[in-house]
């Protein structure tokens, strides 16, 4: 998401690693890929309108845009996931009608998704072999391992074919996804936000490798992103989409951050400036986590002694690559997971996230993916808004009977105040758009002044207006004296909001600094963790 411009230019030219030229055998360049006047509608919504896109052989082409701008729709139409309503796709000079991702693969077009499509419970070799179009009826694993070893030798980096995917770090998994495309001999590789799960260093490593291979004429790369830094550091050309339409295109080296930002967000008003009071002396901590330990779903340790404090009137941001224990940390705070060791304290006293204590201490939580974490899709908006107080007066009479009318009244007021777009207060909340669901949760969690507010990727997948509103409200809660803990995979968000920044890696807090002293490069290194090469997950068999 958009960043204060100054910070971008500051970091963009810091570390562009020397291109690693892939030692691939010289061969004819990949074919040109072009999509012309593509349009796609979903019901009433026009996702894509007359967008053309040209990927030159041996180039890296960035597709830039906000969430919902149509980038994913465009590439999914090219890949045969969706059938475009209008438009043509050409590979080389000939028009193709891609009917499925399998067909695209046969044409030499491969896609790397934002979320891994690797099978966790299988080995690297099994994952690679599986992706092949033609499999023999009986597999000779000895021969396959030898062939993959030989293939890895020609690649800029290698992963042992015998390792289980579960044991790979996020960066290695992303590399394996790319290796898979190369193994399949894809000449055109499309990446959907390939760096969202990587540290800045890992991202540079992977993108640098891709650019090197493109320069060598081995592949062409199209990459969906919303990070200006990556466009400017690694792309040759850029196409910008906004609300399903082409908003601009050009050479990445000739466009400034400002111009890119204008194309991307258009005439949207700039983000409301986050005015905030200067921090005074830190008050005693209101929220304390002391030596918190927890295990993941298969019993491996994911939190290994998290200790931190948040004082009233400050926002503490936890940065980190997703999958380093942040989800589990928030789950422990939310009462969705039990800690195996350690304790929580609020206002100096031991705290367990059960109803009575949550209400007494006014602890509130904005989780990521609110429909999955904080709402019941088939219950109404009014009922969802009553989750915190349906069992107390005035919403409950005589200690057991619900007052549904009062719930409706309150919901109608909140709908107006928070601008929630819904047909009515008794519409099922699952029918609302993601932004409106998050607004409803916001209305519920902030309805009375929170003393402790925990927010986890609160803006993930939301549009510009919703993001801006949520940020404003987080800062407002801080101004009102709440202790705010913000867990986010989006470094820009962390930088924009936090008073203090902590970095989480492999279940531990590995770095702490004030916002004033924060340095993106240093934080990135801590996100990567110093012990990354060492056995991450621990090979432990569980029954």
């Amino acid at each position, binding site marked *: 998401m958009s960043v204060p411009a100054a910070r971008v230019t500051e970091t963009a030219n810091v570390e562009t690693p020397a291109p690693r030229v892939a030692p691939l055998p010289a061969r004819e360049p990949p074919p040109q890929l072009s999509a012309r006047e593509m349009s796609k509608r979903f019901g009433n919504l026009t996702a894509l309108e007359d967008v053309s896109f040209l990927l030159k052989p041996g180039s890296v082409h960035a597709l830039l845009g906000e969430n919902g701008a149509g980038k994913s729709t465009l590439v999914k139409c090219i890949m045969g996931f969706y059938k475009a309503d209008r438009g043509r796709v050409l590979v080389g000079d000939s028009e193709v009608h891609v009917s*499925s*991702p*399998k067909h695209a*693969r046969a044409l030499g077009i491969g*896609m790397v*998704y934002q*979320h891994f*499509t*690797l*099978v*966790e*419970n*299988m080995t690297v070799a*099994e994952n690679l*072999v*599986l*992706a092949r*179009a033609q*499999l*023999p*009826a*009986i*597999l000779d*694993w000895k021969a396959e391992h030898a062939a993959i070893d030989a293939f890895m030798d020609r690649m800029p980096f290698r992963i042992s074919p015998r390792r289980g995917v*579960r044991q790979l770090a996020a960066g290695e998994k992303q590399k394996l996804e790319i290796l898979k495309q190369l193994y399949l001999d894809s000449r055109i590789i499309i990446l959907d936000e390939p760096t969202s799960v990587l540290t800045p260093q890992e991202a540079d490593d992977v993108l640098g490798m891709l650019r090197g291979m493109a320069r060598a004429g081995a592949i062409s790369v199209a990459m969906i992103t919303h990070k200006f830094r990556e466009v400017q550091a690694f792309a040759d050309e850029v196409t910008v989409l906004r609300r399903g339409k082409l908003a601009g295109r050009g050479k990445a080296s000739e466009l400034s951050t400002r111009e890119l930002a204008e194309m991307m967000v258009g005439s949207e008003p700039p983000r409301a400036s986050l005015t905030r009071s200067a921090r005074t002396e830190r008050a005693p901590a209101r929220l304390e986590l002391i030596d918190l330990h927890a*295990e*993941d*779903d*298969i*019993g491996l340790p994911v939190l290994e002694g998290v200790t931190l404090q948040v004082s009233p009137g400050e926002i503490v941001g936890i940065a980190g690559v997703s999958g380093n224990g942040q989800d589990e940390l928030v789950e422990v705070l939310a009462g969705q997971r*039990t800690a195996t060791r350690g304790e929580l304290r609020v206002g100096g006293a031991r705290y367990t996230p059960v109803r009575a204590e949550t209400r007494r201490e006014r602890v509130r939580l904005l989780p990521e993916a609110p429909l999955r974490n904080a709402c019941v899709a088939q219950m109404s908006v009014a009922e969802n808004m009553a989750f915190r107080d349906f069992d107390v007066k005035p919403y409950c009479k005589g200690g057991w009977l619900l007052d549904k009318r009062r719930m409706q009244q309150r919901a109608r007021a909140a709908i107006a105040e928070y601008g929630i777009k819904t047909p009515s207060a008794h519409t099922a909340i699952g029918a609302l758009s993601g932004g409106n669901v998050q607004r409803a949760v916001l209305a519920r969690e902030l309805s009375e002044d929170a003393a402790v507010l925990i927010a986890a990727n609160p803006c993930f997948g939301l549009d510009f207006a919703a993001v801006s509103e949520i940020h404003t409200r987080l800062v407002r809660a801080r101004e009102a004296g709440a202790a705010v803990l913000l867990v986010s995979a989006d470094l820009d968000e962390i930088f924009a909001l936090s008073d203090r920044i902590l970095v989480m890696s492999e279940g531990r807090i590995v770095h702490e600094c004030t916002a004033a002293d924060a340095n993106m490069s240093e934080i990135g290194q801590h996100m990567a963790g110093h012990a990354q090469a060492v056995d991450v997950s621990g090979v432990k*068999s*569980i*029954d």
Partner: protein
Amino acid sequence: MQDAAVNLGIWGVPLAILGGALRVSAPFLFVSLGECITEKSGRVNLGLEGTLVMGAMAGYGASYWSGSPWVGVAAAGAVGGLFGALHGWLCGRPRVNDIAVGIALMLFGIGLAFFLGKPLIQPTAPRLPAIPFGNFSDIPQVRSALQVNALFLCGILLAPCLRWALARTRWGLILRTVGESAEAARAMGYDVNRVRFWATAAGGVLAGIGGSFLSLFYPGSWNEGLSSGQGLMAVALVIFARWDPVRCLYASLLFGGATALGPALQSVGITSGYYLFNAAPYALTLLIMVLSSSAHRTSVAQPAELIAAR
């Protein structure tokens, strides 16, 4: 067993349990191998109890009409396959819950088998042959215990074959992919629903064959009390066997032994707690489920799609 039984004293109990295990575990084995295939694809078929009873009825009927027990086995497999296919087809449709369909097919299968099997209660159908492995011994109990059915031997061979096939064949790899990550399988162009359909149908074939064992070998006749939960226990057994066919074999023998406990004790004259001993396999299943599950973690061996569906 009637001819000049040697008094073995208390040693008769383990021997009877061994013999019982060899006789009784075949239905467990076939149903659990079938469920193993189905669950590896990421779907649960709780209806195998109904498939088992249908297989028993169809196998008995076909054996009676044709005069060949092996025709009966084939018919049982075919009927089981149809039931599996019905489950696979229904669950392939959006918003259809596989657990609920399993329950429905369990009740439907049992009801249909009782309805169609009404005329089969009286007649006697040819039974499957047994191979006498106990001829070396003069003790009749040993001879009787080691009467092993040919179909059971097929099942014993099937378990390692299945393990090999899951690891080293194309369809094994595809099956596991679909069960581990439907999304990944779809991205690679595999039709997840089709794979699951065939996996469920194959599971049904094996469960049907398991049913024919009940009516054609042990106890060896068709009646309405033929199966009481073996199909369901076999489903639970797959969890205990951690989705490994060879461990399914061991677990089946264990369950067979537990089922044989009641009759074994009865054979040496302990009859007082007959019904309680009959509950032993259920209690054992429950105990094993309690011990092998956890509220906070899931087994690494469990196909990931089974977790996602919960």
